[in-house]
């Protein structure tokens, strides 16, 4: 616990340094959202993101397989017809719910793909913030056991 706190202080220090060195933009350093990444439930993360209760929207597409052959690498993408300024990927049953979040300046397409780890079969949420309002898409991704298991 103590160690974790120290590590967090260290992140902040590092971000401060990097920001002043111009390596990571100031906006980003300020926004690195500790509370959101430590959230243990959907509600925790929604709250930390200032999303309260996002509405499901057909304008948001979560691009992911129905079954992952391996939970260590699950491809997940978000695209939307909305003018997205921020996006986030949440995995309901992971130890930390928030997997990643993205900030899209004007001129960047509302599209992102990455790969995440999933400990077990779970609902995965794609959140999109556009014009200050959060919307989302949900999909269950099954994680299977594979190989000989030895």
């Amino acid at each position: 616990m103590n160690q974790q706190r120290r590590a967090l202080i260290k992140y902040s220090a590092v971000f401060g340094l990097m920001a002043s060195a111009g390596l990571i933009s100031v906006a980003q350093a300020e926004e690195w959202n500790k509370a959101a990444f430590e959230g243990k439930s959907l509600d925790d993360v929604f709250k930390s993101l200032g999303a309260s209760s996002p509405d499901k929207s057909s304008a948001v597409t979560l691009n992911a397989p129905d079954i992952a052959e391996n939970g260590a690498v699950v491809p997940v993408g978000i695209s939307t017809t909305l003018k997205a300024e921020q996006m986030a990927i949440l995995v309901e049953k992971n130890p930390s719910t928030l997997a990643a979040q993205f900030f899209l300046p004007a001129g960047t397409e509302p599209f992102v793909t990455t790969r995440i780890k999933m400990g077990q079969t779970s609902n995965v949420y794609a959140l999109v913030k556009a014009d200050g309002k959060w919307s989302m898409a949900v999909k269950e991704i099954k994680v299977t056991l594979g190989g000989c298991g030895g």
Partner: protein
Amino acid sequence: MAPVSALLKRCLMSSLLIAFGQSAFAQTAADDIAKYREMIADGNPSELYEMSGEELWKKPAGPKNATLEKCDLGLGPGVVDGAAAVLPKYFKDTNRVQDLESRLMTCMDKLQGIPSQGIIDAKFGAGPKKDMDAIVAYIVTHSKGKKINVSTAHPKEKEMYAMGKRAFFFQGGPFDFSCASCHGASGKRIRLQDLPNITTQEGAALGWGYWPAYRVSSGQFWTMQQRLNDCFRQQRFPFPIYGSDVTIALSMYMAKNANGGMIQTPGLKR
């Protein structure tokens, strides 16, 4: 005659069970797995290994402070393009049939003065084997799209193939497994993973043509030596020595069976 017909009857019965017992659900699952694989195909982390492998190939190293650029992988000194498509191969200077890793050990020894034993004894993914992984990634990337074209014209190559075939069917260990237990029939799976039938050209090309590969489950790039090592581990065999003849013989059996197929390395595997 009776035992054979009994055997045949049982075989037919079980094939009916297998064929009709496969639910539509299993088929859907297989389709979904195919979709998953398609989605991760873009952005193979093997590229990260390949990048550092190219550097290592061109960087002076070892007691002789030499690069590997004069290494003869079978197509002449320094020829990297397509080299992995003709291995394993007989080499006159060592009087041995060698696969990619054992040949690279020869080059490191002769050109750079790096003794092979240290590489053989190192843990996978660590020390000199880490460098070896990267160099292998670099070499095999430069055979991508080439046709597998392995020769058994030399008597030693022919002999290696025959030994590899025998090793493929060799059962042992507390599970009674041979390579053929899993890779000797078509249309088989372990869990949801398709098992290539290495005794056929098509299956051998699926196996040989896609390894070395980045393995998603371990998050590591695996050379064929490591792939075979883990096969033997799962077979509950003792530990195959890195670059030993049984590993080269099995590679020869797979590669020769795969002739005409396409090299798709580095692959991306579960």
